[in-house]
């Protein structure tokens, strides 16, 4: 049986046309048929069956009752191990449930498994995972493609029909870029809208949970459920969460859409610019006004991001020292030796690279030149958006500079890999919400995503515009 959306499956369930058990079995079958995609780090049929029994007891008014959800393996979960795709957390079993996954559990969703990601969410291709690459389900047989990253497993899970929704985290584009690569919807809400409690930290001031789904309405349903204030996270926002799905309204009459000139970058394929152009025209046709704008500090966003994120990461990952939990190297002769061996063997190359960068930019004598300056530039980038949103409701840009690339491309060139985040990082630095929706395809038939951004806590307008654009391809 093919299920198209959360709303569709939910009504089938409400009308007793399908049972939670049947849903589970149907998804288990699909997942087992395509194991070679390596989408899950943890997948256990028994665990799904265990959940079925619990979910069946819930009343039908639970918004996500029986809905199959994949969870990025960066969210700590009580019933499934949590690895952050790292050897250093291999076999780590949290005794607690993250805020976001707890909310999903409370609404009756069914976790199908923990999805692969770049180790500690550091990467753009889900190829730095200790548990191997995830393959983009849209790949043709002879040419395996990357699903994007870091939440590549979650994006791929939705694209492969392994679930109807998935959680992700986005630090510099880790939801939006894989959504674009896998042809699904992915939203990173405003920084602070969902609690970070229970998500293994990468860069605290940027990390933001969000969701993947097959369409905009489902994304709005899921985001509504995982948002909300949490006093255990001091950076969580105490704001009223709108009823995004109920308020969905495709009307764009009089809305002003900003098109930033800085997002026209050299070396970007014409196909991407064409898709962008089409979306602009569509918006105009739907009654929106187009305004060409400037975000002058955009060019500093990538270097700024690659100072701030590693700096925070170098400190956030210090807790993985082999003392308390997770992997500990054998044969250490002293405490320092234990740290060195554990962390050398426990972390992969990209994580080590970022820890080194972060340690460097925070060290005495370099702090002012790098970290402090990066923080100042970050403020300027955020101000660019503040200024623009005085006159614009939304900004429209491409999501990523390319469609999904072959698995092994760019692997050895970190700078090339970092360029993947060029369109997504500015919004992360500013803490504003952004969505990527599939909009057209390239020559090879691979999906291309476009990105809609808006000011803080303006997810509703993002959903509305995305909802309108989505109709172009229905």
């Amino acid at each position, binding site marked *: 049986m093919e299920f198209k959306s959360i709303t569709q499956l939910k009504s089938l369930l409400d009308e007793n046309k399908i049972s939670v058990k049947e849903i589970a079995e149907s998804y288990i079958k699909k997942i087992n048929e395509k194991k070679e995609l390596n989408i899950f780090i943890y997948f256990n049929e028994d665990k799904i069956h265990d959940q079925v029994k619990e979910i069946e007891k819930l009343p039908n008014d639970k918004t996500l009752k029986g809905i199959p959800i994949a969870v990025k393996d960066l969210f700590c979960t009580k019933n499934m191990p949590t690895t952050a795709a790292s050897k250093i957390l291999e076999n780590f079993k949290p005794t*607690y449930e993250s805020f976001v996954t707890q909310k999903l559990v409370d609404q009756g969703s069914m976790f199908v498994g923990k999805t692969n990601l770049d180790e500690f969410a550091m990467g753009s291709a889900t190829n730095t995972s200790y548990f191997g690459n995830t393959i983009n389900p849209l790949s043709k047989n002879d040419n395996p493609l990357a699903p994007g990253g870091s939440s590549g497993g979650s994006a791929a899970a939705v694209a492969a029909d392994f679930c109807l929704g998935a959680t992700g985290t986005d630090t510099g584009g880790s939801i939006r870029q894989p959504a674009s690569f896998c042809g699904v919807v992915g939203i990173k809400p405003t920084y602070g809208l969902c609690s970070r409690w229970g998500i293994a930290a990468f860069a605290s001031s940027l990390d933001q949970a969000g969701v993947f789904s097959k369409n905009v309405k489902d994304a709005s349903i899921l985001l509504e459920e995982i948002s909300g204030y949490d006093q255990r996270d001091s950076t969580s926002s105490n704001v009223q969460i709108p009823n995004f799905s109920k308020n969905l309204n495709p009307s764009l009459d009089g809305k002003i859409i900003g098109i930033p000139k800085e997002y026209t970058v050299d070396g970007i394929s014409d196909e991407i610019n064409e898709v962008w152009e089409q979306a602009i025209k569509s918006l105009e046709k739907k009654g929106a006004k187009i305004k060409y704008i400037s975000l002058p500090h955009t060019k500093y966003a990538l270097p700024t991001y690659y100072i701030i994120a590693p700096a925070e990461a170098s400190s956030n990952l210090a*807790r993985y020292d082999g003392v308390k939990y997770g992997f500990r190297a054998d044969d250490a002769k002293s405490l320092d030796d234990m740290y060195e061996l554990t962390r050398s063997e426990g972390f992969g190359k990209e994580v080590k690279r970022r820890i080194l960068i972060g340690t460097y930019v925070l060290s005495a004598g370099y702090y002012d030149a790098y970290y402090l300056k990066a923080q100042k530039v970050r403020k300027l980038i955020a101000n660019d958006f503040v200024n623009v949103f005085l006159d614009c409701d939304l900004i429209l840009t491409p999501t990523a500079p390319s469609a999904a690339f072959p698995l092994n491309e760019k692997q050895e060139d970190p700078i090339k890999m970092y360029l993947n985040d060029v369109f997504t990082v500015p919004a992360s630095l500013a803490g504003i919400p952004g969505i990527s929706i599939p909009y057209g395809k390239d020559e090879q038939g691979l999906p291309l995503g476009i990105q809609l951004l808006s000011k803080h806590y303006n997810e509703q307008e993002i959903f509305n515009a995305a909802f309108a654009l989505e109709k172009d391809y229905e």
Partner: protein
Amino acid sequence: MSSLIKGKKNEWETVIGLEIHAQVKSNSKLFSNSSTTFGSKPNSQVSLVDAAMPGMLPVINKYCIEQAVKTGIGLKAKINNYSVFDRKNYFYADLPQGYQISQYKYPIVGEGKVTIDFKDGSSKDIRIVRLHLEQDAGKSLHDQNPTKTYVDLNRSGVALMEIVSEPDIRSADEAGLYISKIRSILMYLDTCDGNMQEGSLRADVNISVRKPGEDYGIRCEIKNLNSIKFIKQAINYEVKRQIEVLEGGGVIDQNTLLFNPSTGKTRPMRSKEEAHDYRYFPDPDLLPLDIDQSEIDKLISEITELPDDRKKRYVNEFNLSNYDSAVLTSDKYVSDFFDDVIESDKALKASSKIIVNWITSELFSLLNDNNIEINNSPITPEYMGKLVNLIKDDVISGKIAKDVLIEMFDTKKDPEIIIEEKGLKQVTDTSQIEIIVDEVIKENQKMVEQYLSGKDKLLGFFVGQSMKKSKGKANPKILNDILKEKLSKKH
């Protein structure tokens, strides 16, 4: 007060600055709600946050912030409306996060000052640079197993206030007075229990020496001293060592030292080359701390009497000396006891000096011998007051009173009842005393003759004999008068 130290060649001045780590008195930790009870079973007070589990986040404990602000007020310091928590990054087995959350650039409390009082009645201000909040680390236990180290995280995350002084201290004694004063202020404010044995109050001491008038010398830091005695010993040793090095033509290595109480010596812990780069940066998990002036004002209004205020009151109200008042007020519990004694009977106000003496000599020695703190004294302030009244009213002599005090200490009884039961009431009846005196004179005819021949000093002998006969109960003044009178009649 001059405190120059004579070396073999020169006179040297000691320059000392203290960093005091005071554990905030709070039921829960700085960033988690785990308990802070001392001496609990290892790892029984550890939350997910304290153990730095993946995805766990610190949340500021507002009460600890208030305690720090109160302390700042007590140190007459500037309270900063804006402060920031930073991460201090280093690896250690008992530091679960791999960083300590502390305050670096923007501490919660700025410049202040503390006054110390000397025996000669003079006093001196020691300037405070800052007070900041930080988390304590856990404890590594190296002595539980021959090959393993165990880690106890009960203390991990407990709130500490680090109080940093300017290098205004010039001797071991001043350092002792300074830390006593800080301890006393904290205890008055109830922001730290002041228990140095349990490590609630510890100090790092920065020491250098210089020839008077010269620039500061190179300093060494002695880490983690947890008694005033050790602080003084460590300073005295270190000053001597530094002078010897300098007079021997050497230079001081800027070292971090540890003090070994059993040898009385310091030894290097790590040298400058191994010094950490802590890579401080603002903790992105925590928002900067914004404290409204109204909140500060509210805390100011909650603060009752501080040691200096109380000292002033004692000087003015009870005519006590500045130093006596300083000694009495230095320990809140002692001066609370004193206040309670006076409070029990307003008439005692006139006997304040006697009360001070009884508390600081007799009661203190009983408490010390039995290792009891004054706030747990078996003798209540009320009974202490009664005893002093009994002495003043000549019901018992001072000498008998000492025995009564011991009895009170052992039995917790009312002194009046003890005196009644034991028949210790002083004899003031002259006829009874006359009988005793007559007996003594009769029994010591030879001595009487000698006395009469000019050996006046023998009067003491007669007093002693008579007192013995009265079992110590004779009123000394009446006894004296009668003796003198009777002996003179023998002429």
